[in-house]
Structure formats: structure tokens, C-alpha cells
């Protein structure tokens, strides 16, 4: 029997083998949007991967240059549709920095609550979709969706829209939140806390899930920094970097919370960093609710047509997927001269090649899922 086996392997050594080119996407559920990658596979092992992006490129930057400052908010929603509050925040804060607008306290706290709630809904989306990537369709997916639904209902009550909120304005917010806002947030937080716990107990200690995620797609801290990764994907490698703490905006310096970092930089750490981050978000929101006091939501002297003096600013905030930056150049007037969106997903996706090469083909899908891309943010 042993002889036969060795014969077979000898024979196979004489066969000419060649690498197989495998096209994934652009329309495929596992690519989380319109994303195409061409993998060179040697048996089951990935030897090379070439990502192709741009299928969702709509020229949001160019459009922003032709619209006035308030009209640009809508385009920001559409670049990052899973965390639109965070995307709007960078944009309106860039305008506020250029126009030297004061934001009233109440508006800042409301912004902070909504951004953290948006982080929760975005991470729930990730958890559900990531479970499907690793092959656990069913219970966790539906659990995550249920919690996300509750959050999105709340966003709808506040802004009137479920995804494209257009609720922040330069100087504050569009209108005040409903009277029962605080109660509703507390209600949603209780169910979200329960949801995270349920999720944690379902997935995080599941043996099959651990086998699929631990030690796969690792990246060192140095490489992650060099490749420009950010957000939970970077912190999973052990880099202690969070813009909310390092360069506090809004009122993040007045609340207490911890920055979650991983150790190994593998798929499991990227997943678990997000789970832990959600608990921190709940901590932040609970503190924000206590600070929330009645008051104005827009500056008293708000010009009808917003104009800014010439200048430029690169304003970055910590969105759920990493650093979301807006580089805005103004040459005077009522619209930006140049508005560049620094996409966290684009920079994270750049690391895909390094994460995937040398891993199994089936794991490539899990790795892609673990960096949690939103293709409309990648392409803008």
C-alpha cells in the first residue's frame, strides 16, 4: 500500500501542473458589493490576487465641487451608506473648521450619540455578514439583522430616512430629535447589549468558527501601518491608534472608554475587536445621554448661504471601518474647490494581497469579509 502511494506521488511529480486563474465577482454575494478579484490558485493555495475596483465609482468628489456646502452632505451619505452619520460628520466638521462655526453643546452630544449608534448598526451588519462568510448561515445572521433593524428604526424616527440620513448640518443638526429620544435610545441599547451577548456566545467560542478564523490572514503591526490600514483592522494587529482618543473631536475627551486592541492581527482578532468595540460604544452612548441637556441645535447667527474664507483642512474622524477623512480646499465662495474623501476601506483593501497570498482559497473569502469593506466607500 505504501509502495502504491509513493508510486502515485512519483507519477504526479512528472505531471505538468499549471496555476489556475480564478475570477471572483464582480457580482457575487461573498464580495460584499461589486468587487472583483482575480486569484491565481495552485491547487487550493492562493499564489496571487489582483483586486479590481471602480465598479461603483460615481465621482462624488467631483460632484461635491459643483454643489454648495449643504448639498454635499448627501453625497457623503452615499459614499459610506452603512455608517452615513460618520461620513456626514467628517464633511460637516470640515466645513465648520473652514467657516469657523461654533457648534452648540446639544448638537455635539446628539451627533456623538448618533455616530456611536451608527457604529453599532454597522458592526452588527459586519457580524451578520461575516458569519455567513465563515459558513454559519442562519441564527447569527438573523440575530444581527434583528438588532440592526431596531437601530435603523431609531435612525428613521430621528432623521426620516433609514440609510441616507442627511441629518447633520454645518453648525449643528437639521432639526431637534424627537421628545422620546432618550428613552428610545436606552430601549435600543438594552436590546443591543443583549444582542451582542447572544452573538458572542453563539460565535466567539464556537469551535468550528475558531478553526476557520484563528491564525488566518495575519498581518504584523509594522506592515499594517505601512499599508495605511486603520480602524479595527489596524487595532487587531496591536496598534493602539484611535482618532477618537488621540485627536478628540466632538466630546470624546469628556467620556470614559477603552481602545480595544488585538494581539495577532488575524481574522479572529479583527472580528473580536469589533465585538468588544461595540460594548465600548454602548458605554460611550450611556455617558452621552447623561450629558444631553436642552439647548439650541444650531448657532444663533447662521447665514442663509454659507460661505467660507479661503483655506484648507484635512479633517479625520474614526468611522466604524477606520479613518474617514475629508480634505477640503476652499477658495472662498459657497462651495468647496476640492473635496477629497479619504476612504478607510480603500486603504484597508490595499492590504488584501498581503493578507491572502499563501492562504487557502476558501479562507480568502473569510479574510475579505474580515476587513469589512463597503464598496461604495472604496470607489466613491
Amino acid at each position, binding site marked *: 500500500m505504501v509502495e502504491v502511494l509513493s508510486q502515485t506521488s512519483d507519477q504526479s511529480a512528472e505531471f505538468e501542473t499549471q496555476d489556475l486563474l480564478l475570477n471572483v465577482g464582480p457580482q457575487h454575494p461573498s464580495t460584499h458589493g461589486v468587487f472583483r478579484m482575480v486569484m491565481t490558485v495552485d491547487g487550493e493555495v492562493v499564489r496571487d490576487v489582483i483586486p479590481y*475596483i*471602480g465598479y461603483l*465609482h460615481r*465621482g462624488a*468628489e*467631483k*460632484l461635491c*465641487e*459643483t*454643489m*454648495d456646502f449643504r448639498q454635499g452632505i448627501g453625497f457623503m451619505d452615499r459614499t459610506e451608506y452603512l455608517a452615513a452619520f460618520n461620513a456626514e460628520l467628517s464633511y460637516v*466638521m470640515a466645513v*465648520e*473648521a*473652514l467657516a*469657523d*462655526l*461654533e*457648534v*452648540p*453643546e446639544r448638537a455635539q452630544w446628539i451627533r456623538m450619540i448618533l455616530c456611536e449608534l451608527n457604529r453599532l448598526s454597522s458592526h452588527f451588519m459586519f457580524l451578520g455578514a461575516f458569519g455567513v462568510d465563515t459558513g454559519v448561515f442562519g441564527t447569527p445572521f438573523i440575530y444581527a439583522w434583528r438588532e440592526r433593524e431596531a437601530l435603523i428604526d431609531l435612525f428613521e424616527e430621528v432623521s426620516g430616512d433609514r440609510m441616507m440620513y442627511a441629518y447633520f448640518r454645518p453648525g449643528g443638526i437639521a432639526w431637534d430629535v424627537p421628545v422620546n429620544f432618550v428613552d428610545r435610545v436606552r430601549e435600543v441599547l438594552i436590546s443591543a447589549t443583549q444582542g451582542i451577548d447572544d452573538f458572542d456566545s453563539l460565535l466567539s467560542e464556537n469551535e468550528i468558527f475558531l478553526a476557520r478564523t484563528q491564525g488566518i490572514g495575519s498581518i504584523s503591526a509594522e506592515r499594517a*501601518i*505601512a*499599508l*495605511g490600514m486603520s480602524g479595527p483592522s489596524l487595532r487587531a494587529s496591536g*496598534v493602539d*491608534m484611535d482618532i477618537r482618543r*488621540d*485627536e*478628540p*473631536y466632538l466630546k470624546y475627551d469628556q467620556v470614559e472608554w477603552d481602545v480595544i486592541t488585538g494581539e495577532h492581527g488575524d481574522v479572529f482578532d479583527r472580528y473580536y475587536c469589533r465585538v468588544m468595540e461595540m460594548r465600548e460604544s454602548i458605554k460611550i452612548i450611556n455617558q452621552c445621554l447623561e450629558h444631553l441637556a436642552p*439647548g*439650541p441645535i444650531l448657532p444663533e447667527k447662521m447665514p442663509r*448661504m454659507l460661505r467660507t474664507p479661503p*483655506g*484648507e*483642512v*484635512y*479633517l*479625520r474622524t474614526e468611522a466604524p471601518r477606520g*479613518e474617514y*477623512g475629508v*480634505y477640503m*480646499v476652499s*477658495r472662498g*465662495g*459657497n*462651495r468647496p*474647490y*476640492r473635496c*477629497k474623501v*479619504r476612504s478607510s476601506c*480603500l*486603504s484597508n483593501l*490595499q492590504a488584501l494581497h498581503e493578507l491572502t497570498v499563501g492562504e487557502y482559497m476558501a479562507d480568502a473569502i473569510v479574510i475579505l469579509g474580515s476587513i469589512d469593506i463597503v464598496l461604495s466607500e472604496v*470607489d466613491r
Partner: protein
Amino acid sequence: MTTEPVEEQFTNQIGDHDDIWSIVDNALLGIGVNRETGFMDVIVSIETDEIVQASRALRDDEDANFDYLRSLTAVDNMGDGMEVVYHLYSTTKKHNVTVKVFLSNESLRLPTVTDVWPAANWLEREVAEMFGIKFSGHPDPRNLLMPEEIDDTFPLRKDHPLAEIEVLQGEGMGYSGEEL
């Protein structure tokens, strides 16, 4: 109710400008720079042929240690050429600097910084296809967002029409500087 003006808040965030200036000046010793103070970060302008040397200096200098490329983009100044803008950050020292390179419209070409920050790879590809700026020595100079066969139109340039309607009805819908 007390609210600080936004600009003041940001100045507090990044600390004293003098600190960061001395660090940057020290790292860029021997390289001609032009200083400017922006809303949040300090801005240094560098000559085109010194950008790689300056990048290495900024990254490798112990006090500066700008190891993280936040963003790389370009701005079209129409008649006055273009500028390429690098936003740098230090993950260890937690400070920022903005580096600018000015290019004339006759020579839209500068060396790549992918060797210094691998993160520049896709960002430079995007700038190249959108503005028509050549990054010499780039390891992978394909289009990033646009189809491969498009290589003669540069959508983010100011003279590029926004939409077909602008071509059909004449210019002036976008960039004349008039208010809406």
C-alpha cells in the same frame, strides 16, 4: 452655555505649533522647505525632486517618525499648475504634518513614494488617472477606478466637463467661481 470656536479647539488638539515645527525642521535639515500653518496641521512645501529624500527623512527621523500616510491627493490650480498633497501621521508620536509638492502644467511628473509608504500605491494610481500626473518608478501604474482603456481624460481636472449637458449647452455650469 460656553462653546469654544471650532478653530481654537483644533489648535488645542494638535498642541503647540512650535513643537512640531522644530521637529519637522530638524528632520528636513538641508532640504528647502516653505512653511505654512493650516487650520489643523502645519504645511511644508517641498521641491519636486526632493520629495523621496524628504519622505525618507520624515519617516526615519527618530523624533518625527511619520510612519503613516493618511492620505495622498492632488489639487488642480488650473493655470498655476497642480499640487500633490501628502497627509502624514506618526502612530508613535501622535503628530501630523501636511507635505505639498507644486508641479507646473508643463511637467506633471514626480517620483513615487511607494518605497517609503506602501500605502501610497493605490492612492498614487488614483491621482495619476484622475489628474494625469505621472509618478515615475511606480510599481503598478494601471488605472485604479476607471476602465483600463481610458488613459487620455482626467475627470478631476477643473477643465473636465461635469456632465454631457455641459458639453451640449456650453461651459459655465461648474467652475466659473460664480455663486449658485
